């Protein structure tokens, strides 16, 4: 094995070890970012942030991870710890930025016109292709309308119910993992999921009745 030029003295060895530790820490953070940034971005969107806010949220989460990685003691899986940091950070981020200036608009739903994004009218015509396209377009519009409605209902849920439902229904986590991420008892998770479902159904119903 070739001697390392940094190891020529005790001091050199110490600084070499420090530099190697720093490089290892940076590499670890880099690996974590590559593996989880997309997942945390998805989590942010599922929790109701828009794309720009989700990108900001991911940056905040990983800067916090960089500051706190030394406090990770290995009692839970690294992913669980990271999700816990993410949920807390995104909750604060959402509280600070979202919904302050963005009221939910139901005008699109009430008008029955899909928000297709490009403003173009649906094609119409006598031939089969046009009919098929119309049917597809109508179905997509219906799905889109429903997703707006569900998003609006989720936004009206309190964070504790929304987070429990998102982690269970959209992240597919077990009750035990959700309890670890939210730092509450498993019974509390079960109760929040159940009450969240009941409340979400009630909100959906009231929005539909208001339209």
């Amino acid at each position, binding site marked *: 094995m070739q001697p390392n030029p940094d190891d020529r003295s005790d001091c050199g060895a110490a600084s070499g070890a420090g530099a190697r530790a720093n490089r290892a820490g940076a590499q670890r953070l880099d690996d974590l970012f590559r593996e989880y940034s997309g997942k945390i971005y998805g989590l942010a969107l599922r929790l109701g942030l828009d794309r720009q806010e989700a990108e900001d949220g991911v940056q905040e989460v*990983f800067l916090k991870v960089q500051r706190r990685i030394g406090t990770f003691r290995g009692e839970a899986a690294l992913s669980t710890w990271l999700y816990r940091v993410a949920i807390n950070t995104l909750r604060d981020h959402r509280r600070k930025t979202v919904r302050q200036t963005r009221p939910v608009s139901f005008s699109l739903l009430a008008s029955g016109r899909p928000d297709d994004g490009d403003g173009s009218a649906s094609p119409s015509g006598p031939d089969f292709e046009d009919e098929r396209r119309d049917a597809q377009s109508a179905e997509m519009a219906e799905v889109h309308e*429903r997703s707006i409605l569900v998003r609006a209902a*989720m936004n009206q849920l309190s964070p504790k119910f929304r987070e429990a439902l998102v982690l269970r229904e959209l992240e597919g986590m077990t009750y035990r993992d959700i309890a670890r991420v939210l730092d509450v008892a498993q019974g509390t998770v079960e109760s929040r999921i159940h009450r969240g479902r*009941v409340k979400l*159904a009630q909100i959906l119903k009231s929005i539909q009745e208001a339209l």
Partner: protein
Amino acid sequence: MNDPCKKWLPRLMAWFDDEASELDAKEVRAHLLDCAPCRAAVQSWRELRLDLSLLQPDEPTEEVLERMAWRFEEGLADEIHSTSTALRWWGRLAAALMIGLGGLLIAERTVMPLAGTVEASTPREIEEAVQEILQRPVELMPLAPERPVPSGR
């Protein structure tokens, strides 16, 4: 939303969320055959699950991932810069404190402290004691003996 039987609710939920044991799952399925309210509750949960699946976002594009990585590196660089700036200021403050303390130490060693204590309890006694202390001569530490200057150079 329909209410399921209260005593079956935890087991029903566990079964619905794939958390029930094999045995529990079997019992729940048997109960569902006989219980219309529980069947209706499960049906409403299924509809809600379908609704929530509409919120499942697409995977982030390469462009989004790259932009986030770039922004994270920028954020890290800013953080390191602000930390080192803060450290520099703390270093300067510590140096100033050290100089100040050193100065105090030298002053304390140069000027002899006022010797002795006085006892005074009434305002008049205190006044007299203060006057007495102020009239004491200030004693300076003897300076180091001067070295003779070599001559003849």
